[in-house]
């Protein structure tokens, strides 16, 4: 399906319908919702109600007692998550969150205002879990869980990227991500996942990564990376896999092993660690830092990430280094320690190059690669020539998860400013803690829901266009694999002429390696500044 022209798509009316939202039926529009999950994906991980179904069909082939399952699940979860119960109880509908959501700004669908998206489930909660809702019904904002209500919850649970921007502005910190996470968990109880999440989850279960890359494929892919690195720099790097006794286990998002421009980031990491002589290993088993289980249920998220610690233990490494990825770091930072701690079989991370102790991760023993590299640069361990990136005018996209689930702002900026001469910030309401989602996070990066993705991507891309027009920015840096996949599409559409890169790609471009040949191109094969004719 062809997408409408940007000018057409940008005619957005933020005014809601005339009829009240409970009386406005949700119409399933093509381009807005992703494909339904496949039978096989659910079977692989033993999820309920595996079958072939489509959201376009009238009959979603639900179990007979779906209503009971959903409501029981809801009751269970409001007694297990204080966040969930509290956020369902205390919203005053002040509206501060309304125009903070990228899907609402770019689309105008009132049910994408975070308050109303939450209200879809809140109304059901009132009906079945509160006295006033039971007695007063609609006047108390309660409604029956009919099949149409269930479908509506599904439709909007997959139009939220769990980016938490609304939660920053909420006077009570109500976090729509919590609502969406648990809404999706409830939907999964009756077999209502989407293909773009359930597929990667099944892959990850079997092969250790979302893309389903098998061990020998990973090895072959890296051989190609090494060949390319050798062609460009004259240096042969020889990474190791599943090696016991390495000091550090490196885990990156598998997207970076698979598709441009993420692959250049992996090549950058290979080159950097080779130059340092770091004693580290990759793993074909723990071959995924991201966790699409997190977009399915908390249990599934935990099931998928057990491998990282199991592998660290098996290989007897000292600590774990994690690559550039957004939701991966939300999960690693805010969930790993609780799921798998105490991680006492690993050591408190110390950089073998600088001797720096990473005190902030002394319990969890996972270091972000940007923390690691920023520390290297600060201690003068890297010999850098930022002018090799002079063909780039760079801006930086803060990923939602590392921003509002971690507070990771300075490290990547410090690195970028040391490896590039031309760096420009996007407007202040669109970066750091106020950053906008790429529009495709939390498993929404499919192609059949392209309109949703483009609309959701508009606020970010619009800020990119602003710096493109003002400063001539031509490169959008980010530290997230989903960003690297999604922003390419959204920026091409809204702000053509800007490309997307990982931070470590630029690090490797600027890195002067011992014994390298005179470089004429950067890692992606573009001529270096001044080398255009060669």
């Amino acid at each position: 399906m062809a997408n409408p022209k940007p000018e057409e798509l940008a005619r957005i009316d933020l005014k809601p319908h005339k009829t009240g939202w409970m009386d406005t039926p949700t119409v399933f529009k093509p381009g807005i919702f992703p494909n339904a999950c496949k039978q096989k994906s659910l079977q692989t991980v033993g999820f309920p109600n595996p079958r072939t179904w489509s959201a376009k069909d009238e009959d979603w082939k639900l179990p007979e007692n779906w209503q009971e399952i959903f409501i029981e699940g809801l009751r269970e979860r409001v007694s297990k998550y204080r966040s969930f119960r509290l956020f369902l109880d205390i919203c005053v509908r002040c509206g501060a969150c309304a125009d903070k959501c990228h899907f609402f700004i770019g689309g105008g669908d009132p049910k994408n205002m975070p308050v109303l998206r939450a209200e879809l489930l809140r109304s059901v909660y009132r009906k079945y879990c509160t006295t006033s809702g039971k007695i007063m019904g609609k006047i108390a904002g309660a409604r029956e869980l009919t099949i149409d209500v269930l479908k509506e919850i599904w439709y909007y649970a997959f139009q939220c990227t769990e980016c938490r921007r609304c939660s920053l502005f909420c006077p009570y910190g109500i976090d729509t991500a919590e609502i969406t996470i648990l809404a999706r968990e409830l939907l999964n109880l009756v077999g209502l996942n989407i293909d773009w999440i359930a597929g990667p989850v099944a892959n990850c279960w079997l092969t250790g990564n979302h893309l389903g890359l098998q061990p020998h494929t990973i090895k072959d892919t890296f051989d190609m990376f090494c060949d390319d690195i050798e062609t460009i720099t004259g240096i042969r790097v020889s990474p190791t896999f599943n090696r016991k006794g390495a000091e550090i286990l490196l885990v990156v998002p598998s997207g970076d092993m698979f598709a441009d421009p993420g692959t250049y980031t992996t090549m950058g990491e290979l080159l950097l660690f080779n130059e340092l002589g770091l004693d580290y290993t990759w793993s074909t088993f723990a071959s995924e830092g991201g966790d699409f289980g997190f977009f399915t249920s908390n249990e599934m998220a935990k099931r998928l990430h057990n491998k990282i610690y199991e592998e660290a233990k098996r290989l007897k490494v000292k600590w774990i280094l994690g690559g550039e990825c957004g939701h991966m770091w939300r999960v690693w930072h805010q969930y790993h320690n609780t799921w798998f701690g105490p991680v006492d079989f690993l050591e408190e991370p110390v950089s073998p190059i600088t001797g720096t102790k990473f005190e902030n991760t002394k319990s969890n023993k996972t270091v972000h690669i940007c923390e690691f590299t920023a520390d290297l640069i600060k201690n003068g361990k890297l010999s850098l020539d930022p002018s090799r990136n002079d063909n780039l005018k760079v801006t930086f996209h803060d990923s939602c998860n590392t921003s509002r689930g971690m507070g990771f702002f300075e490290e990547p900026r410090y690195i970028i400013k040391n490896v590039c001469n031309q760096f420009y910030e996007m407007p202040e309401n669109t970066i750091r803690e106020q950053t906008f989602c790429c529009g495709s996070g939390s498993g929404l990066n499919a192609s059949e829901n392209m309109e949703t993705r483009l609309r959701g991507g508009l606020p970010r891309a619009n800020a990119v266009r602003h710096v493109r027009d003002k400063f001539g920015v031509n490169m959008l840096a980010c530290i997230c694999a989903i960003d690297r996949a999604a922003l390419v599409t959204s920026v091409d559409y809204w702000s053509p002429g800007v490309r997307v890169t990982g931070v470590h790609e630029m690090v490797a471009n600027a890195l002067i390696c011992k014994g390298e040949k005179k470089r004429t191109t950067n890692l992606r094969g573009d001529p270096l500044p001044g080398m255009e004719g060669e």
Partner: protein
Amino acid sequence: MGLIFSFFAVITLVAIVFIGVKAAQLRYLFGIVIPYAAFLTFIIGVIYRVLQWGRIPVPFRIPTTGGQEKSLPWIKWNKIDNPFNSLGVIIRMALEVLLFRSLFRNTKVDLREGPKIAYGSTKWLWLGGLVFHWTFLIILTRHLRFFFEPIPGFIRILESLDGFFQVGAPVLYLTDLAFLGAVTFLFLRRVIVPQLKYISLAADYFPLFLIGAIGFSGVLMRYFLKTDVVGIKELTMGLITFSPVVPKTVGTIFYIHLFLVSALFAYFPLSKLMHMAGVFLSPTRNLANTNRAEMHVNPWNYPVKVHTYEEYENDFREKMKAAGLPVEKE
């Protein structure tokens, strides 16, 4: 629908007390029984709700981080918006509760042809909310004069500050004006801003009408109808000392005011007004971002089914060997 329902609900409340006192002479009921019952409902209800929330575990440490985290020693971190210790959390919470810090961040999107999107700062909701809550608190505190004899000094000071301009007799309190203004503002934005109108429920209009009616009846009583204050104090002191009396001299307007306040107290624990207590328990605000430095325990953490390395190697052993990857079992 919610608006009309709420409006008539409050009108009905006023009618009930008016008829009850004026026609049926149920002064004891409206002056003593209902206020006691309402107050008890409030106390028990709020405690119950807070304990109910408090009993639910916080399985994960999920602060919403609003600034740079504490990491490498040379990187400046944001101690308030990304707290790393209890002190930071206390400051963050205090600013949130007392000054509505998150609301202060509010922006307004401006969508123009092109498309061109801009985000302007907007402080109206923050200001309106702040004025509303603070004046409410001050007015409530001033009312303590009815429950103390002699009246404590801090209440007298508060009163003289509030009536600083010495306008009118009795002296006009600034908070009365500001309070009614703020309630009106909060109401008007709900009916004027289309998105807000769309999301507003009866549960949003009702407390606004109720609180507005309380303010209005209070102002009427103090400045215009001027009912017998000595009688009122007799009644309120009776309530507080558990020796209730019902003076005959107090006008109906007082009973209307008191009944509406009682309605608010009784309604409070059942409603969204519980955000007053809930905000303190919000896990995205009241937790320090120490996730990787300290382990947060989930009381219901349970073992899950995993796909082990052994199973993985069993699936791929031959391919791994062929690719020269080390294996556990040859």
